């Protein structure tokens, strides 16, 4: 096991590298511009956000963020006059629009739901996937190939194709609009990916490692936890990111199956209404905040991801 990474035999020439670099930059720009625009919109005032031509240079405002977290009501000038002076900067901001804060918005709850459901289903998918992958890789599982194919086949149609049966099923058993229901659903979708990805990683770990531990007196479970699991870290990290990204961003099922207690952020954000239509700065702010957890998670696991994303090809 050497520490060197794999290189192509022929190092690319300068021109090739330049063209490749240019393509990457162009691609990055194309994908970054919408994100940047959303990010900027979050710091605009509602009039700035819908002005034409669009404003690239504007005076930043936190109004979008304030609107995201609050519900407000418009009041008569007389009533506004009668109020004591505002206590906080955000109260002042709201009053400048002739409104008062009526209470917190639902965004906090929806965001928390996303965290619970996203991370919960990711944990479950990876946990089940790790155990299944280990079993498929190490033991003589009867009909292993057929089972693996069956597991993969659950991804051969778009999940939304079974939306109606799932909707009816969930309503019958009372899983509609529950955290558990959404966690089970996302886990069911992700676990096939997780089993297949992780099996590749376990296959790469020589059996001798566990056998050495077994001979030294450890049980199979101890050998798995102490010897195999640490070496699977890369694969687990990569798999977890894929699972989280799916569960975090899923929109269609969330829209269909959740409406209240368990609603996640994706179906909620586009429904944020301001005066006279959609509150674009609040939406921009919501999307920006919504992106953060996956971004942080990915950055934390980046070291593993870079190696893991090659699916074990250069794991050594």
């Amino acid at each position: 096991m050497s520490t060197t990474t794999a290189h192509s035999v022929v190092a690319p020439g300068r021109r090739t590298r330049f063209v490749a670099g240019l393509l990457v930059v162009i691609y990055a720009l194309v994908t970054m511009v919408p994100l940047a625009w959303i990010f900027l919109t979050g710091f605009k005032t509602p009039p700035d956000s819908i002005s034409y031509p669009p404003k690239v240079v504007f005076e930043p405002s936190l109004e979008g963020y304030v609107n995201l977290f609050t519900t407000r009501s418009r009041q008569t000038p007389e009533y506004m006059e009668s109020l004591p002076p505002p206590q906080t900067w955000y109260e002042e901001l709201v009053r400048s629009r002739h409104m008062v804060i009526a209470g917190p918005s639902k965004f906090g709850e929806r965001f928390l739901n996303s965290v619970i459901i996203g991370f919960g289903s990711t944990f479950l998918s990876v946990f089940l996937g790790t155990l299944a992958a280990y079993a498929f890789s190490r033991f003589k599982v009867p009909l292993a190939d057929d089972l693996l194919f069956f597991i993969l086949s659950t991804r051969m149609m778009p999940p939304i194709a079974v939306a109606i049966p799932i909707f009816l099923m969930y309503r019958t058993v009372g899983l509609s609009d529950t955290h558990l229901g959404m966690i089970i659903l996302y886990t069911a979708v992700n676990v096939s990916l997780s089993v297949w990805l992780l099996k590749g990683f376990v296959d790469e770990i020589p059996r001798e490692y566990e056998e050495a531990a077994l001979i030294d007196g450890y049980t199979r479970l101890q050998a798995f936890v102490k010897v195999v699991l640490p070496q699977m870290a890369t694969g687990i990290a990569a798999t977890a990111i894929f699972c989280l990204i799916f569960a975090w961003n899923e929109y269609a099922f969330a829209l269909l199956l959740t409406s209240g207690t368990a609603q996640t952020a994706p179906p909620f954000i586009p429904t944020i209404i301001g005066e006279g239509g959609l509150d674009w700065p609040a939406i921009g702010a919501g999307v920006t905040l919504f992106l953060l957890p996956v971004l942080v998670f990915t950055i934390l696991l980046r070291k593993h991801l870079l190696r893991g994303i090659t699916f074990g090809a250069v794991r050594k």
Partner: protein
Amino acid sequence: MAEIRVEALKKNFGEFTAVKDSNFTVADGEFFVMLGPSGCGKTTTLRMIAGLELPTSGRIFLGGEDVTFNRASHRDIAFVFQLFALYPHMNVRKNMGFPLVCQGMPRAEIRQRVEETARLLRIDHILDKPVSGLAGGDRQRVALGRAIVRRPMAFMMDEPLGTLDSEFRDLMVRELRELHNSIGATTVYVTHDQLEAMAMADKIAVMNHGVIEQFGHPQEIYDRPATMFVADFIGSPPMNFLTVAGGLAPGARDVGLKEARIEVPELREAAPAETLMLGLRPEHIRLDDAGPLRGEVFGTEYLGTTQIVTLNVDDTQLKARLAADVRLREGETVGLSLDTARLSLFDAASGRALASARDDAVHAPRTGTGG
């Protein structure tokens, strides 16, 4: 420390038989080598002794106890794998201490044991390094260290030197044997390299296609091969074979070639008419103008102190090991005589060596210091 006894051991993988009816006993403290070509079932045998594979039939005894169906963890055996199997997420110290942690040994004692073992193997200076950056020889020593730190009843080693380059291998061969002499634990060592086997073993089992063809001291195996396979597999260059006229009765003392009769050790059984073969090692051939054989020099290969001379005798090519200072021209015809007492006779049909006076020589077992 323990004796290892294997009785009628057999292993099938589906239709395929990897090990056929193996029987042998490794005495307490012996260094036993299983030698054979790739795929002959050495690793499978070793894994069955260690408990990593269950035999299809047969029994395994460790220190007199039947362990055939014991789990690997309940056999008190240490295993050194060909690829070392050092845990990449632990440093050298953790790797070596890992078997002790399992026994619930106090940390201070583990530390002391690991350091003691590391000093024995001269790796105490790398104890706190990660294993990923180690050179081949050091990895080898760490793997050995992890095995001996536990002081098990027996060691299993599966081609532990297979991945080292030849220079290092020679060094490790010597170190391994010295280590064995100092700790004296029963060892089963698997290799396909006959030089390793000859240099280290107290006893050797030569395997082929799942069958142990011969079991004995290294010299015995070299001087009195029991089968043509063993004769051919051991020795470099291997034993020469000459087809000779057969149909001999017990007590015969010579065999007929095309134009000559060759003296051989006195036969103890009848020789077959059709398939008799004379086996002679390269060093059993001498240049001798008065000798019974004539050979034409085909080529020479200079090796420093000796040279390997290829000779055409009776339409067969023989390789002879001669002193390096003898000058021979290609095409030259030379007279040859043979070291009568050490010649072997085989029945080529069964591959078996015929009983003869060759077998009377007695060999002293290897003394403690080895070599």
